[in-house]
């Protein structure tokens, strides 16, 4: 028969577990910084605002871009005035290297940022905008 002081053991185990749960709580907050990933497709036109409330996401633009420049608003409740927004552009076709297409995040404010784009040629297809909000 083994002897054990069950009251002290339970106390120890509870303390240890509570500390671990507290750590996991921090991890959950950390996870919320980068998840979930969400996807959205722009409707109507290449200037139509989109809403995507996520720290990481992908916006598929409405369609091929005509020559010119413009922008559209991305409503996102994760965005603050001092947020860092990083965006990378995914082109639809290798042929789009001919078109000198540029796109970048601008006008970062509470609740939204804009994606500004310009192109010197008609693109083959719609751009995809990959972004992360820090």
């Amino acid at each position, binding site marked *: 028969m083994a002897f054990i002081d069950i009251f002290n053991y339970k106390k120890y185990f509870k303390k240890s577990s509570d500390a671990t749960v507290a750590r996991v709580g921090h991890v959950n907050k*950390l996870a919320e910084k980068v998840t979930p990933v969400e996807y959205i497709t722009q409707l109507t036109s290449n200037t139509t605002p989109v809403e995507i409330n996520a720290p990481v996401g*992908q916006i598929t633009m409405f369609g091929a871009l005509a020559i010119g420049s413009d922008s559209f608003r991305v409503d996102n409740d994760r965005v603050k005035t001092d947020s860092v927004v990083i965006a*990378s552009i995914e*082109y639809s076709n*290798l042929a789009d*290297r001919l078109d*000198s297409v540029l796109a970048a995040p601008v006008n970062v404010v509470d609740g939204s940022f804009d994606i500004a784009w310009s192109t010197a040629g008609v693109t083959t297809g719609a751009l995809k905008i*990959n972004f992360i909000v820090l």
Partner: protein
Amino acid sequence: MAFVNIYKLSDYIKEKTDALLARYGHVNALAEILAPTIGTYDVQSSTDAAITVPLNKKAGIIQNVNMAFGTTIKLQNSYVNENSIVFYHIVPTNTTELTQIKSDLGMVRDISNTNDLNFMILPQAGQRVTGDIHFWIFN
């Protein structure tokens, strides 16, 4: 003094420990997202028009690229799928290069293979670009 069934206590501890380990599995997954192992592949300033880079890491550096308009660098990476969110940019060789670069780096999926990405140069002035391509694949 209370009596305790040491075997039941052991089962209880195992159950709690397994639950915690399961949570730490998520922690490891999160760490893999935020702090992935970074791989490198050196293309050694090759001026070939089509270069293939097999590099199976979620983040990495394609070192010493020397790209002109028409060059494609194909990244073969098993982490890439049709839903991947890919961030990338080029780090020029040096600050002098910055004043010379009038071209930008672009990326397009390979339509024949969802594990492949193609990096390409967008020609604003047709300048050659040298440096390192940094990428991060977010799934």
